[in-house]
């Protein structure tokens, strides 16, 4: 569905995206992940042909540069910064963008408003909405013409934890409904919750292209598990885990153990086999 080949974007001497090549299949959710300045937003903006770039982007067989208007009909975009006209009401905003997207006359906005819980806010000015509501409005606008592809640039960056959870739930529903998604984020939990594949960018370059569960392994990361145990279980637990070669140390009312990628479950299994009850745990 989406083919990106040798995508490069330079701003003067600065190379924001460097020779990026990837594909996204229909119905797949792919995340750009990386630190600030890694090139995530620039890559997203190239998909929408916001500025000239080198390389090739083909979406549904259409050249994103030469047929950008047709390509944008296939895409619903949710920006990082909430970029509406603040003096327009929610209703005016939806009608304006529906007209631009050539949504047929007589379109029933009600199901969309209900799904995104915007019905009660329809007469409010956009400037009066909370961050979470604005982001839901952005998603409503993106979904107006029921596009097959959603492009989301750091969609939860300005949301609090609760609003973020709600928004992610909506995105998961859309993914299940078959939408193809490309989104950028620097929140790992967002990526694990939503993405089928993660494209890790560093200084504009693609460093890793892997499913989220393989990310830690591919990056060679170790996770630190904090296990809270009864006093009587601490010594046996430390002996058992040290015997398996895991770096382990005492930490307050429990232990701290460093675990290789993909091996967190093993820690719990061996402790259960050794008869040590884990009261609680935290992952670092």
């Amino acid at each position, binding site marked *: 569905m989406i083919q990106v080949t040798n995508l490069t974007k330079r701003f003067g001497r600065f190379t924001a995206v460097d020779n990026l090549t990837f594909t996204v299949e229909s119905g797949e959710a792919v995340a750009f992940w990386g630190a600030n300045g890694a090139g995530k937003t620039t890559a997203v903006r190239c998909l929408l042909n916001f500025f000239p770039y080198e390389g090739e982007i083909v979406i549904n067989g259409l050249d994103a540069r030469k047929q950008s208007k047709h390509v944008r009909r296939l*895409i619903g975009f949710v920006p990082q910064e909430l970029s509406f006209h603040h003096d327009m009401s929610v209703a005016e905003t939806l009608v304006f963008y529906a007209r631009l997207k050539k949504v047929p006359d007589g379109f029933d906005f009600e199901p969309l408003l209900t799904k995104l819980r915007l019905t009660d806010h329809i007469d409010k000015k956009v400037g009066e909405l909370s961050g979470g509501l604005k982001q839901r409005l952005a998603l409503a606008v993106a979904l107006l013409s029921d596009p097959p592809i959603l492009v989301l640039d750091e969609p939860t960056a300005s949301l609090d934890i609760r609003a973020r959870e709600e928004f992610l739930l909506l995105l998961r529903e859309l993914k299940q409904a078959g939408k193809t998604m490309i989104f950028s984020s620097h929140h790992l939990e967002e990526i694990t919750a939503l993405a089928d594949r993660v494209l890790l960018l560093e200084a504009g370059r693609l460093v890793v292209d892997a499913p989220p569960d393989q990310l830690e392994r591919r990056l060679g990361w170790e996770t630190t598990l904090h296990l809270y145990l009864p006093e009587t279980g601490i010594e046996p637990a430390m002996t058992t885990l040290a015997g398996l070669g895991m770096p382990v140390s005492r930490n307050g009312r429990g232990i701290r153990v460093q675990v290789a990628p993909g091996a967190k479950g093993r820690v719990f299994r061996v402790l259960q086999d050794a008869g040590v009850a884990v009261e609680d745990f935290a992952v670092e």
Partner: protein
Amino acid sequence: MMDFETVFILIQKELRDAFRNRWFILYTVAFAILSMTLAWFSVSGAGSFGVAGFGRTTAGLINLILLIVPLMGLSLGALSLAGERENGTLAYMLAQPINGAELLLGKYIGLALALAAALVIGFGLTGLLMVIAGSGGDFLIYVTLLALSLLLAVASLSLGLLISATVKRAATAVGLALFLWLILVYFGDLGLMGTSVVMNLKVGQLFGLALINPLQVFKIAAVLDLRDNLEVLGPAGIYAFRTYGAALWPLLVGLLVVWAVVPFLLATQVFKKKGVL
């Protein structure tokens, strides 16, 4: 390919935005009040001096238009793209299925119509005041001045849009627009006089130099509209009237049209090259 339905939607939005823009409202009200005040004084003086109200008012209006109309066009044009670029709405709009040319044309026509509405309100109220006061005169001259003012407004808007397409920040765009306004309004006459003295310009060269400034073009056209000759403008005016004769009016109007079109076309090219950001 240009989609005129999209352009029409964008024109409607620009008009709506302009009528909610406090600067636009301020300009409209200021222009209406000043032109009506001018008309009031002209009409008051007409009784004692026996001069036709419309003619006197038109003459007075030329200077008012030279000050206010370019300021309106330049500042609204300068704010249009740069302001939306700065707050992110431009990028968001262009993430929709529209292209840059449609966006720019929609903005240009929408703002031009808003400026036209402001001028029609000002001219209309002033004309109404004069009719109520029983002032006589050639109404056609007055309407022609309105048409010339519209051309000047659109030419200024076109220049403002070019500034807006070139810079990133709204404050920079407005600053540049004000600077250009100062040059066109205040340094136009002085610059011409100074240059002609220093360079020892011939009268034809001086007239040619005047045509570079759209405000001078408007002024010459407006004086021609009012008096049917350019003697009031001195040797350069007399030279122009004798040299170009009947071709002078279409030349001046044509130049204003060029000023309205060329900067806009340049703005579309700059916008295309620079992209949204």
